[in-house]
C-alpha cells in the first residue's frame, strides 16, 4: 500500500463535574475529598478572591506596584495544587496567587514582593528546597516549564516519587521554550504536570489568534503523552484531572498536560484596561460560570457550608488581610531605608567590584543625610 493512514493516539477528553449552578452532573465522577479539606479549599478560594480585590485597591493607591490579578482562575489553580503533596514542587508563571496561598506563601510575602521588595521571598512559606517548594514568579512568558522539566528530571534521577506542576497561560504555548519543555518531558518521561491556564486572553490577543489548534491540550499528543481539557472553573473537575496526572507521574508513567478552560475576569495586569479590546457581554457570560459561587453552591448542597459560615469566614479573612497589610507596610517602611540591600543576593559572595559600588552608594547616602542635617 503506497499510502496508508498512520494510526496515532488522537483524543482529548473534556472533564466537568459541576454544572454552572454547582450541581453534580455525574456522581460517579465526584472526587472523594475529605470534608475538612473541601472547606479549607473554600476558605483559600475566598481568601484569594478578597486578597486580589484588596491588592488592586492598594495598587490604585500607589501602595504596591504592578501585579497580575487572579480573579476567575482560582478553581483552575486550587484544584491542581490540592492534589499535590507538600514535597511536590510548583513552578508558577506570574498569576498563581491562589495556588501559592494554598502552598504556604503568606499574604505578607505577596505584599512585600509586589511592593517592590524581594525580601518578601525570604519569609517563611518560601523556603527552597526544604520548605514549600514553590519557585518564584517567571515574568518572561513561557520560560518556566523548562525549569519544571529539569526539576522533575532531578527527582526521577534521585529515585524520589515527588511530582512537579508548572503553570502557564494560553499565550505561553506559542513560545519555543514551551515546546522544548514538552518535548523533553515526553522523551525523558519526567514526572511533570503541565497546567495551561487557558484564560482566553493574552493581554489583548484572544485564544483564537494564539494557535489554530482546536484545543491547547492536544499539543501534548504530538509530544507523546496525554493532554486533557477540564472545566477550569469547576474545582472538582480540575482536582480529578490533577490527581490522575499526579498518580501517573508518581508511578513512573510520565508527564500529562491539563488545559484548564477558564477566564481572566479582571485586567491583564494593573497597567491594563481590558474594556479597550474585549466586549462586556463576553465577560458577563463568563461571570455566570465563575468558580466561587459554583463551589459554594456545591458545598451548601452537601450541607458543609451555610450563608452564616460564609459570612463568618469573610470577616475572618478581612481581619487576616488587614493584619498582613499592617505588618507588610511596617516592614516596607523599614526596607525603604535599606537602599544598600539592592546589592544583596547577587552572588554567593559579593565580588570586590560590587562591594565598591555598594560603598559608593553608602557614601552618597551618608552625604545626603549630611546635607539634610
Amino acid at each position, binding site marked *: 500500500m503506497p499510502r496508508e493512514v498512520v494510526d496515532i493516539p488522537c483524543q482529548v477528553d473534556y472533564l466537568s463535574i459541576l454544572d454552572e449552578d454547582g450541581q453534580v452532573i455525574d456522581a460517579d465522577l465526584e472526587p472523594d475529598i475529605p470534608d475538612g479539606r473541601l472547606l479549607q479549599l473554600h476558605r483559600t478560594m475566598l481568601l484569594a478572591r478578597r486578597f486580589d480585590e484588596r491588592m488592586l485597591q492598594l495598587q490604585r493607591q500607589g501602595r504596591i*506596584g*504592578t501585579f497580575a490579578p487572579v480573579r476567575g482562575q482560582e478553581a483552575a489553580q486550587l484544584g491542581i495544587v490540592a492534589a499535590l503533596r507538600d514535597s511536590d514542587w510548583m513552578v508558577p508563571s506570574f498569576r498563581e496567587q491562589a495556588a501559592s496561598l494554598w502552598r504556604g506563601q503568606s499574604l505578607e510575602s505577596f505584599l512585600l514582593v509586589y*511592593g*517592590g*521588595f*524581594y525580601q518578601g521571598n525570604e519569609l517563611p512559606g518560601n523556603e527552597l528546597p526544604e520548605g514549600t517548594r514553590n519557585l518564584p514568579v517567571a*515574568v*518572561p*512568558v*513561557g*520560560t518556566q516549564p523548562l525549569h519544571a522539566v529539569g526539576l522533575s528530571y532531578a527527582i526521577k534521577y534521585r529515585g524520589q516519587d515527588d511530582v512537579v506542576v508548572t503553570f502557564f497561560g494560553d*499565550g*505561553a504555548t*506559542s*513560545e*519555543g*521554550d514551551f515546546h522544548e519543555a514538552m518535548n523533553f518531558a515526553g522523551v525523558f518521561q519526567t514526572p511533570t504536570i503541565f497546567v495551561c491556564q487557558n484564560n482566553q486572553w*493574552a*493581554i*489583548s*490577543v484572544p485564544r483564537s*489568534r*494564539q*494557535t489554530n489548534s482546536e484545543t491547547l491540550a492536544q499539543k501534548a499528543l504530538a509530544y507523546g503523552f496525554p493532554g486533557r481539557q477540564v472545566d477550569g472553573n469547576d474545582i472538582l473537575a480540575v482536582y480529578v484531572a490533577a490527581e490522575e496526572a499526579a498518580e501517573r507521574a508518581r508511578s513512573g508513567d510520565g508527564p500529562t498536560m491539563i488545559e484548564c478552560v477558564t477566564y481572566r475576569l479582571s485586567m491583564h495586569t494593573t497597567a491594563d484596561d481590558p474594556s*479597550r*479590546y474585549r466586549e462586556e457581554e463576553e465577560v458577563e457570560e463568563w461571570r455566570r460560570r465563575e468558580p466561587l459561587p459554583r463551589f459554594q453552591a456545591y458545598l451548601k448542597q452537601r450541607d458543609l457550608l451555610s450563608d452564616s459560615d460564609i459570612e463568618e469566614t469573610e470577616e475572618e479573612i478581612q481581619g487576616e488581610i488587614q493584619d498582613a497589610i499592617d505588618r507588610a507596610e511596617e516592614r516596607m517602611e523599614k*526596607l*525603604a531605608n535599606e*537602599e544598600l540591600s*539592592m*546589592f544583596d543576593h*547577587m552572588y554567593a559572595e559579593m565580588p570586590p*567590584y*560590587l562591594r565598591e*559600588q*555598594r560603598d*559608593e*552608594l553608602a557614601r552618597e547616602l551618608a552625604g545626603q543625610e549630611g546635607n539634610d542635617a
Partner: protein
Amino acid sequence: MREITYREALREALREEMERDETVFLMGEDIADPFGSAYKVTLGLSPQFGTERVRQTPISEQGFVGAGVGAAVTGMRPVVEIMYIDFATMAMDQIANQAAKLRYMSGGQAKVPLVIRTQGGPGRSSAAQHAQSLEAWFAHIPGLLVAMPSTPYDAKGLLKTAIRLDDPVVFIEQKLLYNTEGPVPEEEYTLPFGEADVKREGSDCTVVATSMTVLKALKAADILEREGISVEVVDPRTLFPLDIETITASVCKTSRVVVTHEAVERCGFGAEIVAQIAQTAFGYIDAPIQRVCAPSVPPPFAQHMEAFTMIDEHKIADRVRRLVTGEL
C-alpha cells in the same frame, strides 16, 4: 516648528514608510488596534493598513524575528517589535546568529533589511526583567546596526533610514521618552546612521550620552552653566556605526570627558566609547575619563530603589563638577 512626542514621531515614520513602500510591514505582540502595542507606537496603523501589514502575532519573539529574517531575504522590509528589550533574549539566535550573519555567510547573496524595534531602560518600576538596558549586546555583534535615538526628531529620521537600509537594525527606544516632545518638521527628512549630534556646545567638559541620559546631560549642563562650567553634550545617536570623530573632536576641544548611559557600567557601551577616545585622543585629555552609569544590579522593583540606580542630572553634574575642579 511643530512639536510632537517621541511616540508620534515613531508612528509617523512607520506610517510614511508604509505609505511609500508596500514591502514595509509590521509584526509583533499586541500591535494591532484597539490595543495598538504596549507603548502605543503602532496605535492607529492597523485600521489604515490592515492586519495583513500590521500583523499581530502569537507570543513568540523567536517566531516573528525569525519570520522577519525570512521575509526580509525575499525583499520585504519587516519592522518587528519586541515589547521589552529584555525579551530579545527569546530571539537571540535569530538576531545574533541569523539576521546578523546571513549576508556574510551567503557570500553577499542574501540581504536582511529587517528592523527590530524595541524599548528598554528603567523609570517605571518595571523591575528586573522589564527595565534593562542591553544595547551593548547588539553593538557587540558584527552584522547588526544599532540606533538609540534620544529626541522625537532623531527618532523619526533614524527610523525612516533604518527601514530603508539593507542591513538588520536593532532600534532601541526608551519607555520614558515616549511622552517627551520636541520639534519635528512636517516635511519629509531622514537622518544618516553614523552621525553623532552635538546637542549642546560647550568648552570645559564633554558629556557623551545616549538615549534618556542625553536629556539628563542637557539638564546637568543647565545646572553647571549657572556655576560657570560650560558643558558640551554629544549624542552618538547610532552605536554602530559610531561617529567617533565627532566625539573625539569634542574631547580634543574640552580636554575632559564623562560618558553616561543607563546600562550598568561594566562592559557597557560606554567602555567602547572610552576605549576609542583613549586610542585616538589620549594626548588631549587632561583628566581621568569618567563613566556615570548604573551599578551592577538588576533594576530594582521598588520605585525609590530604582531611582538610586538611575542616571539623573545631579549625578552627571556632580561628576563633571568634580572633574573640572580637579577633584578627580
